[in-house]
């Protein structure tokens, strides 16, 4: 394992030290392991809280700030945060208007946020939840824990965050978040596995000519392993999986997130984006907004995910609303 770290156990904490140093506009509580907007709690504003295992940076802490999250709860690497952390975040951001949890659909995340919601309720904080489960590589059936939350998480955080910033109440913000999730589908392909600092070795093995199709953002092996294909074919298979699960009619608008999983250079992401843009154009879908870069990552995994969100004018308006966070910034 080759990483810029001091000790596997200290990675999350020491990265938070760096985050605090780089972003004085955030309040980083190393004790509680939470990252909070410096101006929270803000009277009349519902508090938007997300969190999950670390290793997906900039998600979530990189999206704390004006127009997006009020607080992030980073867990250990690939391990959901604990209820205490999430409760501490709720206390830090609740101004009496309640909080909204944005939770990626993993057994651990769901249970820990659920426990935190109960603890928060005990303290008189109203909690609503958005469950993100956009990864169509997983079949959504009673035979699985359900679809995973991946790339759409940042779309939910951006769009629900914009409504919260405008003064939307907790019920509306949660409902909007759910609507964004329902309109979104993601699919990922990895060229290499990732290595958690604690494990010290890759989560799975891939041959020099293989790719993992439908991989998870925690290095969970995917749907299947295949021979590596040209970017064009990978794009085709990815988009087919997405549109099969969540069709978009010709003429409709979409927000497209061309996301790198951590170790894929931007030149490849742009090349892929060109392929996807061509395919979507052929399908008559209009890419109204796009992002190309590393937003929801998986440590040092070489890979990519595509998220397509069917958008209407309200979603686009909220997408365009001002945002000022370490990893996403426009309009201010």
């Amino acid at each position, binding site marked *: 394992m080759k990483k810029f770290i001091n000790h596997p156990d200290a990675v999350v904490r020491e990265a938070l030290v760096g985050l605090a140093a780089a972003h004085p506009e955030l309040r980083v509580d190393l004790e509680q392991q939470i990252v909070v907007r410096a101006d929270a709690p803000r009277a009349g504003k519902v508090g938007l809280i997300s969190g999950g*295992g670390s290793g997906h940076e900039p998600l979530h802490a990189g999206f704390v700030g004006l127009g997006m999250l009020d607080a992030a709860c980073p*867990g*250990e*690497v*690939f*391990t*959901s*945060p*604990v*209820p*205490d952390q999430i409760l501490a975040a709720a206390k830090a951001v609740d101004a009496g208007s309640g909080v909204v949890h944005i939770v990626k659909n*993993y*057994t*651990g995340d769901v*249970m*820990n946020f659920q*426990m935190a919601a109960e603890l928060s309720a005990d303290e008189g904080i109203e909690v609503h939840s958005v469950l993100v489960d956009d990864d169509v*590589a*997983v*079949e959504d059936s*009673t*035979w*699985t*824990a359900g679809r*995973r939350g991946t790339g759409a998480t940042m779309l939910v955080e951006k769009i629900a965050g914009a409504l919260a910033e405008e003064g939307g109440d907790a019920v509306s913000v949660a409902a909007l978040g759910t609507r964004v999730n329902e309109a979104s589908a993601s699919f990922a392909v990895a060229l290499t596995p990732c290595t*958690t600092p*604690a*494990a010290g*070795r890759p*989560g*799975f093995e891939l041959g020099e000519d293989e790719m993992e199709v439908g991989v*998870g953002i*925690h*290095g*969970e*092996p995917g*749907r*299947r392993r295949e021979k590596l294909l040209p970017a064009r074919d990978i794009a085709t298979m990815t988009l087919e999986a997405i549109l099969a699960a969540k069709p978009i009619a010709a003429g409709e608008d979409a927000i497209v997130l061309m996301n790198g999983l951590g170790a894929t250079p931007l030149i490849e992401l742009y090349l892929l984006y060109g392929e996807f843009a061509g395919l979507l154009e052929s399908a008559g879908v209009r890419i109204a907004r796009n992002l190309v870069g590393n937003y929801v990552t998986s440590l040092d995994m070489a890979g990519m995910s595509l998220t397509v969100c069917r958008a209407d004018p309200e979603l686009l308006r909220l997408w365009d609303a001002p945002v000022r966070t370490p990893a996403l910034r426009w309009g201010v």
Partner: protein
Amino acid sequence: MDVALAKAWLDTAADAIAAQADQLTTLDAAIGDSDHGVNMNRGFGAVRTALAGAAPDGVGAVFTLAGSTLVSKVGGASGPLYGSALRALGKSLPEGPEVDAAAFGAGLRAGLEALRKLGGAAPGDKTIVDAYLPAVDAYDAALRQHGGDRDGGLAAAARAAAEAAAEGVRATVPLQARKGRASYLGERSIGHQDPGATSTWLIFQALADATAP
């Protein structure tokens, strides 16, 4: 079982988990996200520290503290599941510095119920339940046989539980996971031993070791 034995069990479990952490993580790498050993080791290490710094006045309090510690230190799926189980065990026990083997057995089952309620897993889903459920069944069966032993049958019941858990772990190999991260793999989860069931076996084996005469 008295307070000292309760602590000894958890200490023995912490040792076993520390020793097997790499193995648990390797199992989790195959069908999960490579952190089960790290999670359990962090959790049981914290339990050890918490118990060393506290003087619980009853057996139940030992387990409630241990469970709360797991909930607040582990995260992931295993933290809430094991934490809730231990908390339910602790809360179900009668007050006092000692409990008999039957009460302890009932407590173990209460823990299982809490875990199942939280996680929603059925037997055969390739989870903790597949080791835990046969273990408490075997415990109860052995207790009926050995209730008259000098220790009220605790050691024999614990041994039976550990053996049944081990059998349950082996039986997870051919299963297709339907809960937790391994379920994403669908048929590709078949052929792998479940990490959570494995750590459950370690915990029951620690009970057998700690109670062995």
